[in-house]
């Protein structure tokens, strides 16, 4: 049935799952996300073990600014909402609306990344760097890895947006948008644990 579907000019209700290839892409992507869980789990475990080893440098209580983290959280959480809105638009076969939601997602992601770069440069000025202490190494590896995921996601999104005009929405392109939205939700999910474990627990100071 999947081959027949691909030939139809009319898009099916859920174009990302209309072909076997599309379904396999989504399934395979979940396996990748399982692997990402292991990766971030290891980084979280390392951070939890080393978070109070500041080596005489600034500690989390001194460094972290909750309003800045709260703003970053709002930006990323909202971008997760806008990416799910883009999938809703895709299911309505409304390509221009999907693109609008994806562009908003990209802008919010860029805002988040800008805040993180600002935050990191501030910390380095205060003597908290990758090599200043075990806390520094664990902090920049964990939070930086998440930031790198956001940066990679943005490049991915720009690549998708660049091809949308030419390729349009088909059973071939639909899984690409869907898988991107899964990735973006996962990045936000990791951030939920980062603001809890790194920033809030760091501010509590135990």
């Amino acid at each position, binding site marked *: 049935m999947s081959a027949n579907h691909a030939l139809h000019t009319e898009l099916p209700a859920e174009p990302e799952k209309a072909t076997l290839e599309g379904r396999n892409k989504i399934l395979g992507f979940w396996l990748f996300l399982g692997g990402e869980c292991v990766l971030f789990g290891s980084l979280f475990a390392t951070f939890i073990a080393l978070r109070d080893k500041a080596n005489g440098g600034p500690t989390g209580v001194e460094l972290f600014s909750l309003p800045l983290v709260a703003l970053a959280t709002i930006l990323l959480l*909202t971008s997760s909402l806008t990416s799910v809105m883009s999938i809703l638009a895709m299911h309505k076969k409304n390509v221009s609306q999907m693109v609008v939601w994806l562009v908003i997602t990209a802008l919010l992601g860029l805002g988040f990344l800008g805040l993180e770069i600002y935050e990191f440069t501030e910390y380095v000025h205060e003597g908290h760097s990758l090599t200043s202490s075990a806390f520094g190494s664990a902090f920049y590896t964990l939070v930086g890895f998440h930031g790198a995921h956001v940066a990679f996601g943005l490049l991915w999104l720009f690549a998708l947006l660049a091809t949308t005009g030419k390729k349009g929405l088909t059973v071939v392109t639909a899984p690409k948008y869907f898988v991107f939205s899964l990735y973006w*939700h996962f990045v936000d999910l990791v951030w*939920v644990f980062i603001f809890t474990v790194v920033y809030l627990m760091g501010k509590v100071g135990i």
Partner: protein
Amino acid sequence: MTDTHSGANQKGEKHLPSQHSARNHLITFALSIVLTAIAFAAVALEQVDIKSVVPFIFLLALIQAGFQLFVWMHLDQKGHQFQRIFIGGGAFVALLAVIAFSYWIWW
């Protein structure tokens, strides 16, 4: 969570439009914002006892993670058994690493 009949694969299934409604997503978003606000307030205002604040905010994070996975990433829908196994396996290993390292440091 919906039922998990292994026979009901993606092939023959018809999703109800309500599963994808924008209203559901907006409610989830609002709840996530509220949970985030409570977590930040618990730490910033120091209203919760210092010993119980960490388990408390961790619980809030877990609830929010559940929203992401089951509402926004559609894990609650039929035909997602393998997806649940994959992400559950990954989460299990991640949790194991965190527990092992915490135990190593604190005891």
